[in-house]
């Protein structure tokens, strides 16, 4: 018998699917905001901090960039309770996503900072700016403006990687798809619906990030941007 698509049993659970998608959006948004904020602090520490602090940031970034997100998630959710820190699945997911994204974003911002020519800093100091002012206005903002496309694709990859938190039973979009699959036995249809929603969310996020880039960094032309691509978790 040829396979027949039956979307009705899956779509009957639209309330659950909607809630799952909302949780995916919430988790991703929180991770993007917190992870990016952490990345800015880490970049500042790496640029202006003492030598040992730079080393700590470098080790943090390399450790997180060279281990799978899944294992980081397991460390946070299963490993931390052994040390006495007990988190709910959603809290653990948010923490792991934030840590992961902060490391990747720090690395991307580093590329932007390295692309700022040294004469820019000298010009800043000759205008009697303090080193904090030079970092903020001469280094950080132009650097972020240059690498905004790379940051954007990293943020989108985080949205996609958020599906992995269903491994620790978080009921976000892919977790919801698994539940619906086990209830309706329509596995292919369940995941097609979830995939279509991920696709829509990813395209929407790309659009939003493009708009933010346009609004926040109006003076950077497309040609001046540093071309570094994001990497998946």
């Amino acid at each position: 018998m040829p396979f027949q698509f039956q979307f009705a049993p899956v779509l009957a659970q639209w309330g659950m699917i909607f809630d799952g998608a909302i949780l995916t959006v919430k988790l991703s948004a929180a991770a993007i905001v917190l992870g990016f904020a952490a990345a800015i602090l880490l970049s500042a520490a790496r640029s202006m901090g003492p030598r040992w602090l730079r080393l700590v940031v470098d080790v943090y970034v390399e450790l997180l960039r060279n281990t799978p997100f899944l294992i980081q998630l397991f460390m946070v959710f299963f490993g931390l309770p052994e040390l006495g820190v007990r988190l709910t699945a959603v809290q653990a997911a948010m923490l792991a996503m934030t840590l992961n994204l902060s490391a990747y974003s720090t690395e991307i911002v580093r590329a932007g900072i390295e692309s700022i020519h040294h004469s820019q800093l000298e010009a800043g100091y000759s205008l009697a700016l303090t080193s904090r002012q030079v970092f903020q206005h001469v280094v950080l903002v132009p650097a972020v403006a240059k690498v905004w496309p790379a940051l954007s694709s990293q943020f989108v990859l985080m949205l996609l990687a958020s599906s992995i938190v269903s491994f620790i039973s978080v009921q976000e979009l892919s977790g919801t798809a698994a539940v619906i699959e086990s209830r309706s036995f329509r596995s292919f249809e369940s995941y097609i619906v979830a995939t279509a929603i991920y696709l829509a969310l990813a395209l929407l996020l790309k659009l939003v990030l493009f708009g933010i880039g346009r609004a926040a960094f109006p003076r950077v032309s497309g040609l001046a941007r540093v071309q570094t691509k994001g990497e998946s978790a």
Partner: protein
Amino acid sequence: MNSIGSDELSFLLESTGWTLLLTAISFLAGGLIGGVIAILRLSRNRAVATVAILYIQVLQSVPVLMVLFLSYYGLALAGLELPPLLAASVSLGLYVSAYLAEIWRGSIEAVPYQQWEASASLALSPAQQYAYVVLPQAIRISLPPTVGFLVQLVKNTSIVSVVGFVELARAGQLLNNALFQPFRIFGAVAVIYFLICFPLSRLSRYLEKVFHAGRRH
């Protein structure tokens, strides 16, 4: 309470072998498809190029986990009964192909256009232009990002544990179910992944430095 002994460690190392094999097969499979997609993407035929763009964009905009599930159930619906290693490789290969296609397209485009014109004026056919003039240069350009992507692939093979294939991440879960020492076990798993990925990351950065030596300020 049991602790991690040599048996557990050899189990982890054995499953590391499976992770590496999975990485190798899916990289080869994805590379083959990705190479074809990259060339289709650069085709002068609008329709062909659009199909390639859609393929890349859609696969890069959905989670690997969904690609995994869909190709798993898709293969089953098509009546194909593949062994777990092969099924997992096919799924990862699809994901790999979209990213490698985009990396390699960029590398091919980075070869100066005059190279095409010069080789065309020597009466080389498009296939010959690719084979003898453009690809040798493009491969050189593509090496650093390709190695960088390999790191992503090694890490993403961990997701395959969800369909029961026992690679490194799954081995860690199984050990943890038996011993319940999550911090040490997943710590050990993380160290093994790090030992594979970190040298590759360094290699990628080194290649980048060597090939771009003239362009740094």
